[in-house]
C-alpha cells in the first residue's frame, strides 16, 4: 500500500522527505508540497505517514482488501506514544486500530541492557546508533575493514 499526500493539508515541513528510507518523498518543485515521486518503489514502511505532523499522508489500499473508494487514515501522538488507524471501506464499514509507538524505558525491551548505563541525552540526539562509535572504532581514526584488521569472514549467515 504505497502512500500519497493530500497536497492541501501538507504544509511543506519536509519531515517526510527527511525520514523516507527509500528517498522517494520529495517536495514538488512547483507547489512546495510533498509528494511520493515513485509509489512503485515505496517500501510501505509508513514512516512518512507516521511522521507527518499535518496528517497529510494517506496509504493507498490494495484493491483486494479495499476496493476503490476506501480510505486509510492515521494519526500519531508522539508524546503519548500512540498511533491510531482508521480504515473506511466504500460500503461504510469502519475498522479502527490502535497501536503503540514501542519506545520503552531503558532495559525493558532488551533485559540484557539493564545493567548498561542508559544513553545520555547527548547520545540520544546524536546521529549515531547506540554502540556505533565504539564498534566501528571511530575514535581510532581510519576506516576499519576486515582486511586492515587481518580478520576473515567465516562461512555462514551473519546478521
Amino acid at each position, binding site marked *: 500500500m504505497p502512500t500519497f499526500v493530500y497536497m492541501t493539508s501538507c504544509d511543506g*515541513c519536509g519531515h517526510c522527505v*527527511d525520514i523516507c528510507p527509500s528517498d522517494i518523498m520529495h*517536495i514538488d518543485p512547483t507547489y512546495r508540497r510533498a509528494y511520493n515521486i515513485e509509489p512503485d518503489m515505496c517500501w510501505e514502511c509508513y514512516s512518512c505517514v507516521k511522521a507527518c505532523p499535518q496528517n497529510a499522508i494517506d496509504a493507498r489500499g490494495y484493491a483486494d482488501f479495499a476496493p476503490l473508494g476506501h480510505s486509510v487514515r492515521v494519526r500519531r501522538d508522539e508524546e503519548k506514544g500512540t498511533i491510531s488507524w482508521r480504515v473506511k471501506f466504500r460500503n461504510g464499514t469502519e475498522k*479502527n486500530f*490502535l497501536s503503540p*509507538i*514501542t519506545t520503552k524505558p531503558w532495559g525493558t525491551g532488551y533485559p540484557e541492557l539493564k545493567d548498561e548505563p542508559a544513553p545520555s541525552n547527548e547520545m540520544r540526539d546524536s546521529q549515531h546508533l547506540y554502540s556505533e562509535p565504539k564498534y566501528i572504532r571511530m575514535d581510532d581514526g581510519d576506516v576499519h575493514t576486515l582486511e586492515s584488521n587481518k580478520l576473515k569472514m567465516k562461512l555462514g549467515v551473519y546478521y
Partner: protein
Amino acid sequence: MFTTNHFAELSATISPSVMQAYVILMVLLVAGGTLFDVIHKQSAKYFFRKGKKSEQNAVRNVSGGEKVSLAVKTTVSDVLTSSEFCNPKRRVAHLLGMYGFVIYLIATIVMVFADPASADSPGIWPFLWAVGALMVCVGGYWFWFFIRVDVSSEGQSPFRVIRADLFILSLLASVTFGLIWAFTQSSGGGVWSMIFLGLYLIATTVLFAGVPWSKFSHMFFKPAAAYQKKVAVANGALDNLPRVADRTDPEDRDRHSMELLKDAPLNMGLGIKREQPRHY
C-alpha cells in the same frame, strides 16, 4: 527617514489625489483578484462541499455558541499567532512578515490620506512604516534564503524562482524598494530617489494586481479552512481521521495492543520533532 512623511514630501511632484486614487485602485484590485481566484479555482465550491461532508459525518451537533468560541479560537491561535506552523522558525518568520505587512500597510494608508498640514502629522506613522517594512524584510529574507522547504529539505538553490514565488518576491521587493526610496529621499533625493520610487511602485502594483496568480489570497481562505478544521474536530467528523487515543482513558489503555505500552511513560518526548528536517 523615521520621522518624515515621504508621501507628503512626494506631493510636491505627484498630487495627493493621484496617490490616494492609486491606493484605492490597489484595494479594488485585491478585492477583484480574490473574487476571480475564488470563482476560477472553484475553491469556494469545494470549501462548502467539504463543510457539508463534515456535517454529514458529524457524531454530535456543534451549537451556535460553540461555533463562536471556535471562531475566536481560530482567530487567536491560527490567525494571530500562526499556530499552523510546526516548525518554530517558520512560525517566527511568518509572524514577522505578517505583522510587519499589516503595520506597513496601515501606515502607508494613513500617510497617504493624512493631511500633511494638520498639527499631529506625521506623528508616529513614518516610524511604524519603516519598522513594518523592516520586519517584513527580516522575516521574508530569512524565509527566502534559509527556511523555504525546497531550499532546506531538497537542497535547491535559493535563487531558483517559480510562479508560486510571485507573492513573497513582490512583497519583499515592495518593502525593500520602499525603504531605499525613503532613504534616498531623506538624504537629498535626486535621480536615485526617483528611480527607487519607480521600482517601489512597480513592485507594489505587481503585489496587489498579481492576486489571481499569486498566493496573496491565502490571507483570506486560510483562516476559513482553519475554522472548518476546528469544527470537524468539534463535531467528531475529524475529516476521516481516527480519534487520538487517550492512554489515561481505561477503554483505550486496556485495548489489546496497548499491552506493550503498559509501563511506558505517558509523555514519550518530542521524537522526530526534536530536530529540523534537513538531512537530504
